[in-house]
């Protein structure tokens, strides 16, 4: 079922439908959830990291909260203010795919937040930082939190099963529709239909044709500018595949080992 990402105050108008609530002020979230139907709320997004989460303290147990960052360079230290709430709320940070993402991602996972990278068509500097963030996610022994889309793709690659980047990035309009305060669909969220967009790219002869990642990516990085060059992204995905291959190899070896009788240990 499609979920609707809506300003929190619109909750009463969306009866019976799963929603993602957006608010800059935690008091607003609390206000609508106290009278609304929290069971329909997939999660809530806090859009101002300067906000004080105290209104949710001791009250919103179980409400999943997504801290939405807009400027990772300026905002990443603010995560310290919210870390104490990890003890009672499942929380993640949405980090835009722009310069500053490596530091923001590193601090977020170091504090115990999950991370989701957001946005389309990163500049080369941001792709390089995503490579750093991937390295932190894969190799730093202190990291135990998921960083999407790396986490979802790694699992899919290890188990050799399909996954859709539009879904992992929560940008597939068939799954989530983003509405403004009037209840109107926000423009520039993505193509109306991802499969039609993908097919159009292939038919137009974009570099997606023949790309080994097409089934996963479906042209995610070709929106909105279909001329976006994906070489940096393909390197990133290649590193992820190499890590998955290594991990699967290790698992296969482990499963092939006969168990040692206890008296030989």
């Amino acid at each position: 079922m499609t979920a609707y990402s809506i300003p929190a105050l619109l909750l009463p108008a969306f009866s019976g439908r799963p929603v993602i609530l957006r608010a800059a002020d935690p008091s607003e979230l609390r206000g609508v959830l106290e009278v609304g139907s929290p069971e329909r709320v997939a999660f809530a997004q806090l859009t101002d990291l300067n906000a004080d989460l105290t209104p949710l303290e001791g009250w919103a147990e179980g409400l999943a909260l997504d801290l939405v960052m807009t400027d990772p360079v300026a905002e990443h230290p603010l995560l310290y203010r919210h870390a104490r709430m990890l003890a009672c709320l499942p929380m993640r940070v949405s980090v835009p795919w722009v310069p500053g993402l490596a530091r923001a991602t590193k601090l977020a996972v170091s504090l115990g937040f999950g991370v989701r990278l957001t946005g389309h068509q990163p500049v080369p500097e941001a792709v390089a930082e995503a490579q750093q963030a991937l390295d932190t996610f894969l190799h730093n022994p202190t990291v135990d939190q998921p960083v999407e889309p790396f986490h979802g793709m790694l699992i899919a690659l290890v188990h050799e099963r399909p996954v859709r980047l539009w879904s992992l990035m929560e940008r597939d309009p068939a799954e989530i529709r983003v509405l403004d305060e009037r209840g109107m669909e926000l423009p520039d969220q993505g193509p109306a239909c991802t499969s039609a967009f993908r097919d159009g790219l292939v038919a137009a002869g974009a570099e997606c044709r023949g790309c080994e990642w097409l089934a996963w990516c479906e042209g995610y990085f070709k929106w909105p500018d279909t001329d976006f060059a994906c070489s940096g992204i393909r390197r990133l995905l290649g590193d992820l595949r190499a890590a998955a291959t290594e991990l699967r190899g290790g698992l296969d070896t482990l499963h092939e080992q006969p168990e040692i009788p206890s008296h030989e240990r």
Partner: protein
Amino acid sequence: MSAKALSLILLPTLQCNAACDYCFEDKTKDRLSLERLAEIVDKVLDPLGERKIAELTIHWQGGEIMTLSPSWLMRACAQIDEAAAARGCTVSHGLQTNLIGYHAGWNDPIREIFGNRVSTSMDYPNLYRRRRGREAADYTEIWVRNLHRARAAGIDVQVIAVPNPATLEMGAERFYAYFVDVLDIRSFQVNTPFPGGSPNAVKQLLPLDPEPLARFYVDLADLWLARGLASGVRVGPFDELLAYFQDQPALLPCIWTEDCANHMISIDARGHMAQCDCWVASYPDYRFGNLFESASLGALLRDSSVLARFHQRPMALVQGGCIDCDYLALCHGGCPVRAYSVYGRLSEKDPYCALYRAVFGHMAAAAASLARSSARHLVSPDPCGPETLIAVGPSTHIFPE
């Protein structure tokens, strides 16, 4: 304050029967009455109940706690437990004592309140722990005698040891052997010394040179891994770091948390509240306020500009070099009081940064090595687990030093 649990370092007395050279506390004759304690307890427990913070751990310290009577402590703890139960909170108690004043009269409260466990302190060699006007050897003799008496009474005694220049010169082997082989201590931890409180000649030697100190720590970790781990000896911080890097729940010391001001407060016999015992006893300008003079704990914390400065410290450090550290998740710049006592500023990272990085790296490598050597004995479940949209917080806990 953390949304789930709080540690309170309670100093019901600032009197002490020792005069250790590197002690960071300015001693006074103040003692907490049961009436005043009730006021503190109400003010601490009320907001915990309102905010559904279910777990409070009280670390009883001083001064020296055994300058009070066992019966006072029994009555105090009963009073606290009753008040906590009325609010649906759980309180656990820990006891930190120098053991110099220990006698058989302490056995009942230690058994009934503290689970028959105490934490005490001793160095090797002991150069600086002593009674007023006496030599360190006199202190060591009394401490060892009382250690044996307490253990004969069935008390589990854990030890905190602080290395000094002679410790580093002597080396980890003799240090480990003293505690484990000579004293038969099964659990001890090593803390780094810092020049907190009023300056003196001994504190001028601090902080210790991080390079030989790191060598000592790494050697000690290796000794523990080789000889202690399999036989059930625990040596902190190595045991908890190993657990951390093995992805098991870990009880890390308070110096390694994202912001200790989220997890811990200290209150002394005069009602002063600060970040920890060193701040409350010796740095008046860094107290959050006085609980007896405040309407509530919540009001005191909300209005404290000092507390805000503590919260700002990790935010400032992460904009400096800490963000580039592989062990940011463990340390977040380390201990504020160590930084302040050495540099005179809160905004500095812990002076033992190099030591911590060496120890973290060593224990991470040890955990990886142990995992590799045991991997062939395992048939592993899927290590990736199910996909997670939003994951929960870290599995670590903290423990005051």
